[in-house]
């Protein structure tokens, strides 16, 4: 059984949910309040579920008649933000890696250092005249290296997901459950429904509703998805069709990768700026730095990837490749220990919400 998130934060969240449950003015804002109303008491599992269901849209802070400086001191977005990060820590596998959630920048720099070491070691030569990446690092070496850390990251996140489910969703999805409900939950996640659930955008500050947070998240998420698709298509070309890289600028992998790369340049910068301009009372500082560290890695991955694409014919291509792969390595290895995991737990919480709604 996973260790539960911090007891002090749980107590604060429980107090807030008890006040909210007696008030219920916010019930039309989002699923957090609708899920809360289904409960009379709040276990650590319930609170962890609600924390991960919260999109931090912020409406309920400004609407709250009990928000600070009222003596009840209710700040649901901030409390759930703190609890969310603590829940990420508690689900981390292996458990000692949870420290990465508390020190995201140190973890990122350490991962980059290991990445440089790994990709420099894997590089056979830094002198190549054409755009042939595999002469710098052989294809099989690349597949082996990223295959291993990719599988490790997937395994770590799968274990985290199981720990989340054990605590927050012990009854889990039922076999009898129709595909419709999980389909709706997936749509809720992919459209970021609850960042505009009231028909308007979420708030950056009191009475300041802006679409940027949602759009920049879409740029980031779909940018990431396109890059992933690009790599998948390239793997099919290589392994099944025997078409060896480099591919033309108009080829499917390059077009997908370029579009995705553009998304991963715009999205992370946008999200970073949005986060900085949002009312700091809405989000715990730990969640903000977790986000910034992840955004930095995404941005650097994309930036070095696009530079590499443009300058792949140049003699210093091998150095660029080593740097790019070092960053990709750091991105992969920190996936289970950074902001990325919010997507896993959010999706699980959204699925649970849709399931409860159908009962």
């Amino acid at each position, binding site marked *: 059984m996973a260790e539960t998130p911090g007891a002090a934060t749980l107590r604060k969240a429980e107090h807030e949910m008890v006040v909210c449950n007696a008030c219920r003015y916010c019930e*039309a804002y989002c699923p957090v309040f609708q899920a809360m109303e289904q409960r009379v008491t709040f276990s650590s599992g319930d609170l962890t579920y609600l924390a991960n269901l919260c999109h931090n849209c912020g409406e309920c802070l400004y609407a709250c008649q009990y928000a600070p400086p009222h003596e009840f001191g209710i700040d649901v977005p901030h409390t759930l933000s703190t609890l969310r990060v603590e829940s990420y820590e508690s689900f981390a596998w292996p458990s000692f890696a949870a420290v990465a959630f508390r020190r995201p920048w140190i973890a990122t720099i350490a991962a980059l250092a290991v990445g440089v070491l790994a990709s420099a070691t894997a590089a056979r030569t830094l002198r190549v005249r054409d755009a042939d990446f595999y002469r710098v690092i052989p294809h099989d070496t690349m597949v082996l290296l990223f295959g291993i850390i990719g599988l490790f990251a997937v395994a770590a996140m799968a274990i985290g997901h199981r720990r989340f489910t054990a605590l927050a969703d012990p009854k889990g999805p039922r076999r009898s459950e129709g595909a419709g409900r999980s389909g709706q939950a997936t749509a809720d996640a992919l459209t970021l429904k609850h960042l505009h659930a009231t028909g308007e955008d979420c708030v950056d500050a009191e009475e300041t509703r802006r679409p940027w947070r949602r759009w920049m998240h879409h740029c980031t998420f779909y940018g990431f998805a396109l890059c992933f698709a690009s790599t998948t298509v390239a793997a099919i070309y290589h392994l099944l069709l025997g078409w060896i890289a480099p591919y033309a600028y108009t080829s499917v992998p390059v077009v997908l990768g370029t579009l995705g790369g553009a998304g991963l340049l715009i999205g992370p910068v946008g999200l970073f700026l949005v986060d900085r301009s949002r009312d700091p009372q809405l989000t715990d500082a730990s969640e903000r730095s977790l986000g910034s560290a992840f955004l930095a890695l995404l941005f650097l991955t994309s930036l070095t990837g696009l530079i590499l694409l443009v300058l792949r014919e140049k003699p210093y291509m091998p150095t660029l490749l080593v740097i790019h792969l070092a960053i990709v390595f750091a991105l992969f290895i920190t996936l289970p220990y950074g902001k990325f995991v919010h997507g896993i737990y959010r999706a699980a919480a959204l699925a649970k919400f849709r399931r409860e709604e159908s009962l």
Partner: protein
Amino acid sequence: MIPESYDVAVLGGGNAALCAALVAADRGARVVVLERAPREFRGGNSRHVRNIRCMHAVPTDVLTDAYTEDEFMADVLRVTGGITNETLARMMIRASADATRRMNRFGVRFQPSLRGTLHLGRTNAFFLGGGKALMNSAYAHAGRLGVRVIYNAEVVGLTMRDARFESATVRTPDGEATFQAKAVVLAAGGFESNLEWLADIWGEAAKNFIVRGTPYNTGTVLRLMLDAGAEPVGDPTQCHAVAIDARAPKFDGGIVTRLDSLPLGIVVNKYGDRFYDEGEDYWPKRYAIWGRLVAQQPDQIAYSIVDSKVVHRFIPSVFPPIVAASIRELAASIDVPTGTLAATVERFNSAVRPGTFDHQALDDCRTEGLVPNKTHWAQRLDTPPFLAYPLRPGITFTYLGVKVDERARVVMKGGGVAENIFAAGEIMAGNILGRGYVAGVGMTIGTVFGEIAGKGAAGG
């Protein structure tokens, strides 16, 4: 210091005040809002409200079914026992028909009608996020219209000549300041937070009252206006009070301090005796009388006692119940005479007649031979652990106000009308509600008379 000069000065900062300010500013008037509270607690009692009662002939985006003028009027007559000005009430009801759409224009948002507390979805439109969100939207719009809002501004003096308003003097943390205006809107609420004034009326008992809303409704403007010769309206000795958890903060506890457990068990005073039929009617229809009932008990305290069978049948209180394994133990922990409480429960239990419990209906579970009997939802208190919630009177608002005419102008003693003095909201609610209350009508009064006052103050 040279006084600042405006077209319209609005005294108060709740919904009625902002409706007046927005309507006046929309018509081009230069408006100043003098709000006594700091920004964080702005909005008077409107920051604690949930919904507004509106008539409508057909379903709307925010209201289900239909709620006619006559039905609304019948509700007002029922709760006030006829102590209302029917002309003003009907005028208000007709104007409520489009109120939500007019508020939409000011950026106010409502819940879709098929969400939330459905039993009120027909008669009342729910503000998305409640009253504080409403006030945030209104203040944001006031900013867009160039309305000047001054917080921490307590009105300490009104200068009038021959029932004409000339200026208002306010005390702020930076000192006193005077604001001249061509017209004034009085929208500063009642006097329910003025503990001395309450004590003048209710004596010692008043010190045990809890004020559910803002601490800033001390009735200063009301007092100044009555002293200046305004015709009073509403019973000066009455207030609206409900029974709330005795552990609530002295002010501003709002909605969460309410208790819904009362009809599911028994209610005893500090001597351990029952004193009223807890099952008289549905709780929303009866909870308003319990404030007065508790206020009439010794030391203004009572206890709602339930057993664990019914724990999941009421909205959980924000304060934890006092729990004990037996009635005697419970009596000891709430400091009620053990023998008396045990005897009260024993008598109650043996008086319970068999019936089919249904807390959604006026069921046939009742007692026989008790004084007073419990006429519905009477079940034996026999399943430990037993729970107690302490109760105190929680005062919501006072009825005393200033009389107004159809244009929301203040009527002076002797029948004259103050041409440039308008009133809206709780300070004149007594014109409609001589007594009693029905959910959301306070916001109807504030919105409609706020708009009329704002229009009049801006020159018609």
